[in-house]
Structures are given as structure tokens and as C-alpha cells.
């Protein structure tokens, strides 16, 4: 069979199984919808069910094609046998001819554009790295495994579970086509909503405003998840609007499942659950009806979707919401400092001069914030006039709530969940002058076509550039296209060719996880990886080297424990200790096995201050606060007279004092200010650094030309103890000797 067959079959089966599950669920609940709505709601609620099913299969270790395929075909067969494919609902209000033609013409043209892009070999930055990288890993392992070295594995991955189903049959492009299915579903759902609630023309215009928007198309035609999330949120909103009218209690079950699936798809989409609970509670209160029971139904159904992801993180990482909330749930897998830095980074993209540039960036330019909505959305404030319309108020309320997570990440695609609501609100205003609304639709469609977009956006804007028919149909091979176009793919080939199976490759930048079976550890993606990066940079950065000595001297005292306490407050420094040595007279006390070491914060790395290695250090991985400490419990009373710290110099603001526990158990301040001395720069650090990361299971190093220290690795490979294995696209692979 040609590859294109498997791609289409993988995606089609995934969508069909989701629809079948959804139809069976809606039918079992006895819910009645209009004909067009049945399909849309079945796909979306069925996706939640399929995602949960795949999660369970991955949990018990049977996530494989040989299970998915027969199971999927069986589910479809049961749905057909039960007659679930037959629609019982009445059709929605018809469209006027003009608006019908306008909708299907624009929708059809852009569907073709998106379809071929989705089916073409997947090479989106996040799709070909972590979204599908993790999916591929789960498939190789036939299920989940405990991953502590990739924070993206800790995020909820409800949509990726659908991708896993499709990927098992049709690989990367099948997954992207599943996302494409949500992309196509979204405008159809928007139109159906408008038809049900009586503003058909606004529905057509609003649906097309969203659908042809360049960033929506770009995102939805790759293995990202934002457009799927937008679709979930919109359908949730839609179902809630129906519930408000009909007050069918059983409708709260798919509403709850969908609200929970929003969280399962993306943490930030938890706003969907908050909206659903708030909406149901408020409407019940206003109608003077009891709210507890309907709220409980929504919450419990949502929990069915949420708990698996929360439990997975709790059991494996000690933080149910990893990689966030690490201050509440301290754990060795994600540094608190990283979380803070990450959040700050997401709120301030490099290259953005000021937040006043955001409107132009997200509508016209498209490089700095990665994507553009199209110039039409400069008119988004017009949508506020829709507040005069009851539906407009509902749309703007939901859209405003779904917009809130955007302020945590200002990339353009994080606006997508709010775009359908803003689009419909704008359309509600514009259709007062119908020819004008139609003109806006046509102008927006023209301005969103790839050949036109490139005439006004930034050169490097994230957008679709062509209609890759030959590549989608695999007339040009995947290998050829990806080698030509993807910056990552050739690197993946290098990894597979030059690093044996089982290799663990440390790198400092994103790497092509989705196209290699080798394990890649990106320095910023976990605490462990960051520590490896810290070790590796120590030979290159003099300020990281232990050349600053603090000596606490005092008359010989019998003591049970000693503790060095940091007393200063504030950033940006972290406290670190390369070595803590205890002396009795001139003799350094050997570190006995009965000693017990403790540190706060980050207790898990305390051994690195007691290993005698100049390239490892205990770090607080937290900005300075009074009360940080490193402690030694001798396990018995020892007479000592000096405690020495060897520290790096990248912590200019630390202030230290020494405390000790006497034989009676009392803690006392000991010694005064420490004596400071400069130590000579240790030699042999490169070799020692490689030795340390080798001990921790790293076998290879992948260094991009732009990475810090790349030149040194290249020129001093022998001194590091590295063997150069090859170079692709300015990334060099070294083996640790």
C-alpha cells in the first residue's frame, strides 16, 4: 500500500472511532440535536472518550497498532450495528443562497490548502519535537513510562492520545490530519451554533473569519493542539447555550466530560471547566433552582477526564500539576527557578520591544510572536459593539474568559481559543451591513492566502507558504522533502545513524525527538538536564568554577551537626556550594558513611557539595532567601575547629553564617564572619565534567553551532574526552569517550 493510504487510514480511523464513541454516548444519553449538530458533537465528545480510552491502554502498556486498529474497527462496527450513524435530528435552519455559496466557496478552497499541508510530512517546530516526540516514544514503549527528564511529558496530553492512535497507523502526518479534523470542525460548529440561535449571516462571516486566519490554518495543519483546544472550548460553549435553553439534565454529562477534556488537552484550557461550572451555577441560581446537583454532575464528569493526568503526575513526579506549582509541590524534577524563568520568558518574547507592539505583531507581522491572525483582527474592538446583542454578550463573556491564559503566554497561537468568539462578535456587528460583512469575508480570505500573506507579513512569520500536493501524496518522498525543508530532520538521521540504540543524548536546544528513537535530553527541560548543563558549562565559565573559599574558624568544639546558613534575600543569584569540608586541626575529616547531609531548598542534590568534584555543586536553584542551608550531621559527636566552603563566584550577594548543634542538642551560632580567599582555577575540568555526566548515563552530546561553548567543544574535543561523530545542519554530534 502507498504511504498516503496509511496516513489517510490512520487519521480517518481515529476520527471515525471518535465519532462512533460520541454517537454511542449521545444516543445512550438520549440526547436530541439537529442533524448537523449530531456529527459535530459526536466527534468532539467522542474524542474525549477516545482520548481517555487510549490513556488507559497506554497505562496498561498495550498502546500499539495491533490493539488500536481492531479495537477501533470494532467500535465503529458496533456504532453502525446500533444504527448510530443514522441521523434522527431535524436539519438546522437553511442558509440563504448567497451566504451558502460564500461559505462553501471560501471554506472549500481553504480546506484544500489546509488538507495538503496537514498531510505533507510534519515538520512544525513543536510537532516534530515534543508533541509527536512523546507520542512516538509512547508507541515504542507500548505505553507510558516514567519520564522525569522532559517537562513536556508532564503536561496533560489529551489531544496527543488521539495522535497516538493515528500515529500508530499513519505516523506523523496522520496525527496532523487529526488536528486538521478539529480545524475543519471548528467553523462548522460556529456556523451550526449561529444557525440554531438565529444569526446565520453572522455565523458564516464569523466562522470564516476564524477559519481562514493564517495562524489558525498554520496551527491546525500541524501536530500542534491549539486549534483542537479552541474547538473543544467552542463546542463546550455551544452545548452550554443549548442547555440553558432546554435545561436537559443529561446534557450536563457531555458538558462535564468536555470541560474535563479541555484540561486534559491543555492545562490553560481549564478555563473551560471554570466557565462551565460558573455558567451552570449562575443560571441555576438565577432560575431559583438548586445548583448543587447539576454542578456535581459537571464536576464529576470533568474529573473522569482530569484525574488520570493529575494522578499520573502525582505518582511519578510528586507534583500533580507539573511542571508548574513547584513551590507548592517541591520535587527533584523541575527547578523552581526554571518555572519562574519560563513563565517570565513566555510573557516577554525576545524581539518584542514593548507590549504595545502586540496588536501589530499578532495581526500583521507574525515573526516575533510566531504567527499572525490577519489584518482583519485589527478591527477586533468592533466586536465590543456586540454587547448590545444577547448572544454577543455570551460570546464576549466566554471569549474574554478564554483569553485570560493568553497573558501567561503572549504567542499569537495562544489567542486561538478566543478567536472564534471574537470572530462571531465582530460578525454580529458587521452583518448589520450585509454587503460590508461579505466584503470583509472576501478581503480577509484574500489577505490570508499564502501568496498574499507574504506580501505584508514579516519574512520569517510562522505561516503556510504553499500547497504541497506532491509531498502530501508522497510523490516526492518524505525523506527528500524533510531533508530539503526541515532543519531538524537531517539531525535526527544523524542521531539514528551514529548513536546506537539506547543512547542518551544531551543537548542545549530543541531537538527532533519525533524522528529519532534515541533519547534526547534538552538542558532546560528538567532539573536533571539543567544540572548536566551546569556541569558541562563549569569548565567554560570561570565564574562557575570553585575559586572562592570561605573558612569558618573557631576554637575546637565537640559538635553533633554543623550547618552553613545563607542569610541574604533577593535575586538574581542562586546560592551554590561546590564543596563543604570539615576540619579538625589541619586534617580534613573524611566524609564517613554515617554522616547525613541535608540542604534546603533542593535537598536532592546535596551530595554534589560533598563529592570532591570541582565541576559539580549543590545549587539552590532558587533566588536567595534567608534560611537556605547546607547541613552535615556527623552521626556522633566530633571535635572540629574549621568548616570550609568552596564556592563559585556567580553568587555575588550571598551572606553566610555558621550554626552548629552541640552534644546537648542545642543550636548555636558559631564563628563570626568567614575568612575569604581566592583559590586557583582548577585544571582538568573538561575531562572531569564529561566524566560526571557520563556517570549520570549521558552517552552523547549534540551541540548546535549557536550553542554556548560550541567552538570549544569543536576545537578541544580531545581534551573534553569527546569523539566527533558527524555534523548536520550546523549541529555536531559527539560521543563521550
Amino acid at each position, binding site marked *: 500500500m502507498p504511504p498516503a493510504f496509511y496516513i489517510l487510514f490512520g487519521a480517518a480511523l481515529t476520527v471515525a472511532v471518535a465519532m462512533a464513541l460520541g454517537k454511542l454516548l449521545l444516543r445512550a444519553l438520549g440526547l436530541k440535536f439537529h442533524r448537523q449538530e449530531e456529527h459535530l458533537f459526536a466527534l468532539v465528545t467522542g474524542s474525549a472518550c477516545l482520548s481517555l480510552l487510549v490513556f488507559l491502554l497506554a497505562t496498561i502498556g498495550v498502546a500499539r497498532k495491533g490493539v488500536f486498529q481492531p479495537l477501533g474497527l470494532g467500535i465503529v462496527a458496533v456504532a453502525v450495528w446500533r444504527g448510530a450513524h443514522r441521523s434522527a435530528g431535524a436539519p438546522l435552519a437553511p442558509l440563504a443562497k448567497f451566504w451558502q455559496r460564500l461559505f462553501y466557496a471560501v471554506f472549500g478552497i481553504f480546506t484544500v490548502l489546509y488538507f495538503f499541508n496537514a498531510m505533507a510530512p510534519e515538520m512544525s517546530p513543536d510537532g516534530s519535537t515534543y508533541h509527536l516526540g512523546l507520542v512516538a516514544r509512547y508507541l515504542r514503549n507500548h505505553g507510558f513510562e516514567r519520564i522525569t527528564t522532559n517537562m513536556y511529558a508532564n503536561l496533560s496530553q489529551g489531544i496527543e492520545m488521539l495522535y497516538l492512535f493515528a500515529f500508530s497507523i499513519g505516523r506523523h502526518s496522520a496525527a496532523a490530519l487529526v488536528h486538521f479534523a478539529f480545524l475543519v470542525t471548528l467553523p462548522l460548529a460556529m456556523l451550526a451554533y449561529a444557525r440554531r440561535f438565529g444569526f446565520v449571516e453572522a455565523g458564516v462571516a464569523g466562522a470564516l473569519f476564524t477559519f481562514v486566519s493564517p495562524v489558525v490554518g498554520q496551527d491546525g495543519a500541524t501536530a500542534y493542539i491549539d486549534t483542537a483546544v479552541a474547538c473543544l472550548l467552542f463546542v463546550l460553549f455551544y452545548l452550554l447555550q443549548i442547555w440553558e435553553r432546554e435545561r436537559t439534565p443529561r446534557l450536563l454529562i457531555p458538558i462535564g466530560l468536555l470541560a474535563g477534556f479541555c484540561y486534559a488537552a491543555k492545562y490553560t484550557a481549564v478555563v473551560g471547566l471554570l466557565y462551565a461550572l460558573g455558567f451552570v451555577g449562575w443560571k441555576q441560581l438565577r432560575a431559583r433552582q438548586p445548583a448543587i446537583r447539576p454542578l456535581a454532575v459537571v*464536576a464529576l464528569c470533568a*474529573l473522569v477526564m*482530569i*484525574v488520570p493526568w*493529575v494522578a499520573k503526575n*502525582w505518582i511519578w513526579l*510528586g*507534583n*500533580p*500539576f507539573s511542571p508548574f506549582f513547584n513551590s*507548592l*509541590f517541591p*520535587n*527533584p524534577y523541575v527547578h523552581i527557578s526554571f518555572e519562574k524563568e519560563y513563565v517570565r520568558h513566555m510573557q516577554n518574547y525576545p524581539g518584542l520591544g514593548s507590549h504595545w507592539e502586540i496588536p501589530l505583531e499578532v495581526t500583521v507581522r507574525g515573526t516575533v510572536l510566531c504567527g499572525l491572525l490577519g489584518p482583519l483582527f485589527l478591527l477586533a474592538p468592533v466586536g465590543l459593539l456586540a454587547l448590545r446583542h444577547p448572544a454577543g454578550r455570551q460570546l464576549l463573556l466566554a471569549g474574554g474568559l478564554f483569553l485570560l491564559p493568553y497573558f501567561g503566554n503572549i504567542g499569537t497561537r495562544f489567542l486561538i481559543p478566543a478567536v472564534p468568539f471574537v470572530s462571531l462578535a465582530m460578525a454580529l456587528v458587521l452583518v448589520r451591513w450585509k454587503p460590508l460583512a461579505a466584503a470583509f469575508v472576501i478581503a480577509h480570505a484574500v489577505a490570508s492566502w499564502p501568496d498574499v500573506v507574504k506580501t505584508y507579513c514579516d519574512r520569517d512569520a510562522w505561516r503556510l507558504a504553499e500547497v504541497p500536493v506532491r509531498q502530501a501524496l508522497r510523490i516526492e518522498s518524505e525523506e527528500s522533502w524533510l531533508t530539503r525543508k526541515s532543519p531538524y530532520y537531517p539531525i535526527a538521521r544523524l542521531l539514528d545513524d551514529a548513536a546506537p540504540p539506547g543512547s542518551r543524548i544531551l543537548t542545549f536546544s530543541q531537538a527532533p525527538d519525533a524522528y529519532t528513537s534515541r533519547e534526547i535530553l534538552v538542558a532546560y527541560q528538567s532539573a536533571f538536564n539543567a544540572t548536566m548543563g551546569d556541569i558541562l558549562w563549569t569548565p567554560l565559565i570561570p565564574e562557575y568554577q570553585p575559586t572562592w573559599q570561605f573558612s569558618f574558624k573557631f576554637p575546637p568544639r565537640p559538635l553533633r551537626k554543623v550547618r552553613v546558613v545563607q542569610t541574604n534575600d533577593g535575586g538574581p543569584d542562586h546560592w551554590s556550594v561546590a564543596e563543604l569540608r570539615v576540619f579538625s586541626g589541619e586534617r580534613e575529616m573524611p*566524609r*564517613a*558513611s554515617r*554522616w*547525613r*547531609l*541535608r540542604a534546603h531548598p533542593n*535537598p*536532592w542534590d*546535596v*551530595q*554534589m557539595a*560533598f*563529592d*570532591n*568534584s*570541582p565541576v559539580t555543586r549543590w545549587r539552590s536553584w532558587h533566588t536567595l532567601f534567608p534560611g537556605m542551608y547546607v547541613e552535615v*550531621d556527623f552521626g556522633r559527636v566530633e571535635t572540629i575547629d574549621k568548616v570550609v566552603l568552596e564556592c563559585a563566584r556567580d553568587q555575588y550577594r550571598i551572606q553566610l553564617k555558621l550554626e552548629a548543634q552541640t552534644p546537648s542538642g542545642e543550636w548555636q551560632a558559631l564563628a563570626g564572619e568567614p575568612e575569604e580567599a581566592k583559590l586557583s*582555577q*582548577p*585544571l*582538568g*575540568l*573538561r*575531562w*572531569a565534567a564529561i566524566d560526571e555526566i557520563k556517570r549520570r548515563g549521558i552517552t552523547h552530546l549534540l551541540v548546535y553551532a549557536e550553542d554556548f561553548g560550541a567552538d*570549544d567543544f*569543536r*576545537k*578541544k*574535543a*580531545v*581534551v*573534553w*574526552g569527546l569523539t*566527533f561523530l558527524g555534523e548536520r545542519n550546523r549541529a555536531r554530534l559527539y560521543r563521550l569517550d
Partner: protein
Amino acid sequence: MVPVVCLWLAGCASLPDTYAPPMQRRPLTGPEPNPVDHYVTMSEADADVHFVSGISDTTEAATWRWTGPRAELIFRLTTTGHLRFAMDFAIPEMTFKQRGPVAISISINGRLLDKLRYEKGGQFHFEKPAPFDWLRTDAYNFVTLEIDKPWVSPDDGARLGIILTSAGFVQ
């Protein structure tokens, strides 16, 4: 409710909060194994193991050293294939007033790799493939830099060649 339950459950997770001392690493008493390698950067603490003659004992601004009219360096290679000799250096503009255009002859193991001529000062990067049959892995490789006209420092009369930042073999 979910956060509360999770908070409670997460509190049950047990990770040790004290640790025994780890295995002790051997103290580092000298430079990395094989201090003479395939490339030298003047900022390295042990750069001088690569110098045979004609290179200043002093590192200036922690990054460069003067060569004399004839500088000789050694390199150790683990392979001879697909290597390029590379060098980062500078010639101060002010030296041209005294000595005029400068020619630098670069030889590897006694064979002339290239002769470079400069009529203006500046920072330069030189890189050229090194024939594999000129190189050896079983002994040191000698690289000689010969500057045809030295610059005589007006301060101390030292005969100086070029400012060398780094040199060696790269893949």
C-alpha cells in the same frame, strides 16, 4: 476539591530528605589527560604545553599572545583524515608603518601549507585542509609560523610577529 485532594496525596509521596556522602572523586592534580591536543586557545591555562618556541610567555587581555618572527607549536592528533588547519590571529595596523606588508608562511611538519600576504592590519581567520599524508597520529605534529618581517617594539626592542589567539586542527 481537586487541588486539595492532590495536595493531600502529594504530601504522601516520600523522597528522602537526608543523604549519605557520595562516592568521592579523585582530586584533580593536573591538567586534562593528553594536555597536548589538536587545538590550542591562548586563553587556556595550560596553553603553553603546545609551544615549542617563539611564543610569548605572557597572555595579553587573557586571550592572545605575541609570536616572534618564527613560532613553533605542537599538536597531537587522533586521526589524520578530513582535518583543516585553522588559526585566528591579528596584525595591528600600527605595525605596518614600520615594516610594510607582511607575509606569513605556515608549515606543517616541515611542508609549506600556505603563504599569506597582508597589506593592512585587522583580525583574520585562516582555515585550509591539511593533507592527511602530512600528518601523523603516533607523534607530535609541528606547525611553524614564519613572519618575513618582524615588528620591533619601540618600547623594549622585542622582535614580534603576529598576535595569535588560537591555532590547531579542526574537522
